[in-house]
């Protein structure tokens, strides 16, 4: 099953952030709690953890791009069970 990963709300004050580095590449195994990517808000660089176990299928955002909350960021193939 393909699961969509959307941009979380990282700051109460803003809904657009600078997308930082990916910590996982397509095809790589991802475990719940692994750092998936970095996002820069005004005050911090947040390392966002995966909420899923699976294989990273697609990166939908590139480093340096501006992302908005709820934007599709990635897809992860999760096992059915």
């Amino acid at each position, binding site marked *: 099953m393909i699961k969509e990963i959307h941009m979380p709300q990282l700051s109460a004050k803003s809904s657009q952030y600078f997308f930082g580095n990916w910590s996982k590449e397509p095809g790589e195994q991802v475990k719940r709690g692994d750092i998936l990517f970095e996002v820069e808000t005004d005050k911090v*660089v947040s390392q966002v953890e995966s909420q899923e176990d699976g294989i990273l299928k697609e990166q939908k955002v590139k480093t340096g791009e501006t992302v908005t909350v709820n934007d599709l960021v990635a897809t992860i193939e999760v096992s059915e069970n």
Partner: protein
Amino acid sequence: MKQESKQQEKPEWLKVTYSQKKVDQMNTLLSGLNLNTVCAEANCPNLGECFGSGTAAFMILGPNCTRACRFCDVPHGHPRPVDLAEPLHVAQAAKRLGLSHIVVTSVDRDDLPDLGADQFVQTIKALRQITPETTIEVLTPDFQGKTEQLDKIIAAEPDVFNHNMETVRSITPKVRHRATYATSLRVLQYVKEHASTKTFVKTGIMLGLGEKDAEVYQLMDDLRDINIDFLTIGQYVQPSAKHYQLREWVPLERYQKYYHEAKIRGFKFIASSPLVRSSYKAKEELLAVYGK
């Protein structure tokens, strides 16, 4: 709100982990209580860590501040009516979270006749009633230096009275609004002189605003002259391009140097590192002085 420009490159230590699940859990726990946390309102870098470990600093008296300090991310705006259920809700939240130590702060309420002091008192009372084991730290405004308001807080006997100096004397007028170095020092002195010996008195400053070593040492001396117990030192992080411009990411060595200088001067507890905030890991200070 869109970010206007990317600010200075952030240092490596400003990288924090964010777990949506843990933040959601905290928000669920607090839902229905109509409470504000300074963690969220000020976009604190430690939010993920603190929420993840089940702790938060509560900000009473509404989300809008009557002052517009140039370093602060809490919104300046028209104040809301005081929520009389708020003290009870803070106590219920502390109980739900099982907090062994709670930090209660507030926005400035220069519009209220009591400047917000009564809400602090009611919150302390509610906490004592509902979760008597929880130690209580209040991080208060300056109450315009009015001793009749400070007397109310003193009488409520918080375990820690905290009021932030924020910065050294020369920079204070540039970053604080309707607050002065002298008034804040007087507030701390008054509380130290009049509070029970069970109440520790604490203050905190930010680095990176352009302060010089000698000014920081002078501030430490001023604080020790009036026997202040705890000192926190952390890095200023500019909330947006409109706020006071960050002068420097202060190197770790300087935090260590200031820690030693503060230690020599006799503070009972010092927290000095970039991510230190006045409420960050506040219970560790009490544990340290209680020898636990």
